[in-house]
């Protein structure tokens, strides 16, 4: 019971202190806010990118067309060879008749054209699914070198570039976010240091009247925690409203139907939870550090 009352008291003291050192608290909170907004953007963007690339990668297949004169044995051998390439996950055969059937269903013009021809002009093919999209080109090139392969194609260029641009964006945001988190930690650390300094006479009295270390230190740790949590309020609002508005303005996708955005709910709520957690953790640890360093009891 006593411990709980000390806890509650520390909580109140910390809250008062946030407002007592208002300008400093404001600076820490502002920095936390900016950091967390960027963290939020980074999460929103990179999660969307991850979502898209995963989808793209899933749909990424190399279509291998066989020479017309290829025999059944040759085709079988080729399949085995392709399957033995390390990056290949799955090889599916699609005959020219299947292609023809599919195309005829696709549009009536194609249907009439194909029906008009006596011989099927299409080729037998393999659809090759890869494990890692990064090595798509290499894998395609290896396949091209095989005999009886007429061509091995994939959405060359665009997909490649998209994947590498996404990768770059991810890396840059990670670096910026880490730098900002460090700056925030430093600012909160500094705020707590000054709070400790401005209340040193109170701390001294507490020591003389027999307050436990827990009772002396806890208010300052809470103060850092509060600064972090207060700093996450605006980012959370920005995240929820910003993403909802962006999502509805863009009708849920960018560029084309290919790049679909992640649905807002419960995505924004998870992101908000991450933001408040980051704020609290950074606030807690930076004030804990300051207390350990500057509050010797």
């Amino acid at each position, binding site marked *: *019971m006593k411990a709980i009352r*000390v806890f509650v*008291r520390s909580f109140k003291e910390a809250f008062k202190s946030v407002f007592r050192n208002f300008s400093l608290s404001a600076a820490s909170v502002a920095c936390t806010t900016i950091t967390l907004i960027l963290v939020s953007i980074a999460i929103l963007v990179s999660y969307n990118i991850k979502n898209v690339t995963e989808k793209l990668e899933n749909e990424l297949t190399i279509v291998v067309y066989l020479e017309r004169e290829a025999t059944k044995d040759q085709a079988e051998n080729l399949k085995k060879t392709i399957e033995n390439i390390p990056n290949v996950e799955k090889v599916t055969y699609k005959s020219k008749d299947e292609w023809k059937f599919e195309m005829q269903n696709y549009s009536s013009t194609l249907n009439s054209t194909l029906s008009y021809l006596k011989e099927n002009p299409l080729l037998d093919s393999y659809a090759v699914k890869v494990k890692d999209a990064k090595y798509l080109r290499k894998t395609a090139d290896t396949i091209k070198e095989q005999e009886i392969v007429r061509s091995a194609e994939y959405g060359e260029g665009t997909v490649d570039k998209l994947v590498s641009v996404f990768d770059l964006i991810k890396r840059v945001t990670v670096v910026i976010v880490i730098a900002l988190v460090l700056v925030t930690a430093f600012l909160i650390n500094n705020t707590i240091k000054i709070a400790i300094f401005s209340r040193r006479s109170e701390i001294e009295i507490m020591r003389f009247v027999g307050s*436990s270390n827990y*009772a002396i230190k806890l208010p300052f740790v809470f103060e850092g925690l509060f600064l972090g949590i207060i700093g996450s309020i605006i980012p959370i609002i920005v995240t929820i409203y910003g993403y909802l508005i962006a999502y509805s303005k863009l009708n849920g996708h960018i560029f084309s139907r290919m790049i679909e955005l992640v649905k807002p709910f419960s995505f924004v709520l998870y992101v908000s939870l991450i933001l408040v957690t980051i704020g609290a953790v950074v606030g807690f640890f930076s004030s804990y550090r300051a207390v350990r360093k500057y509050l010797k009891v």
Partner: protein
Amino acid sequence: MKFISLKNCYKVYPNGVTALADINLEIQKGEFVFIIGPTGCGKSTLMKLLYREEKPTKGNVIVGGINVEKLRNRKVYKLRRKLGIIFQNFRLLPKQTVYENVAFPLSSNGIKDTEIRPKVLKALELVGLKDKIKSFPDQLSGGEQQRVCIARAIVNEPKLLLCDEPTGNLDPDVSKEIMGVIDSINKKLGTTIVMVTHDDQIVNRMKKRVITMDNGVVTSDVMKGKYKKHESN
């Protein structure tokens, strides 16, 4: 029954100053003891050993059954809760009322408000400040502020009250008042009192045990009533 015991205590500060050399003392429960001596002779250092602000370089300090020199930093508060400390400068919280200042040792340690109130009122009554409960420290005279400090020091009902020149900042009449308060705490509550002072008048008038120090050693220890008169230096 002895309450304080120092055996072969030395204190050498990191800068090489030997503040205490081979101190041996025993103080009984309920005793009232003055510690006097010229400036820099080690009086405050001796007090600091008693409330574990400093550790003896060598020797053994026992206060109220606690082996002080073995007490770890984290546990010092256990000793401090058993004693009250008063200094020359008052060290009150300026933004808190008299009541809040006196309640501070209890409220900061999570004691229930309903338990705090009677204790605070009792302490304030003892020092004669019951009518100033709602005042702030800067609205009080020096003597009144020191009385608030005394109330704060005894609100925990400690067995020992350590006073390091409590009247150092006060004029003679007010000092007399404060001494009256401390004496009544000793008599009414049976609190052991150890008091450092420079004020010969107080020592001569009160007729208590007097320990005289010089240059880090005890030069005389005169029991209650035997102390005649301090030759002014």
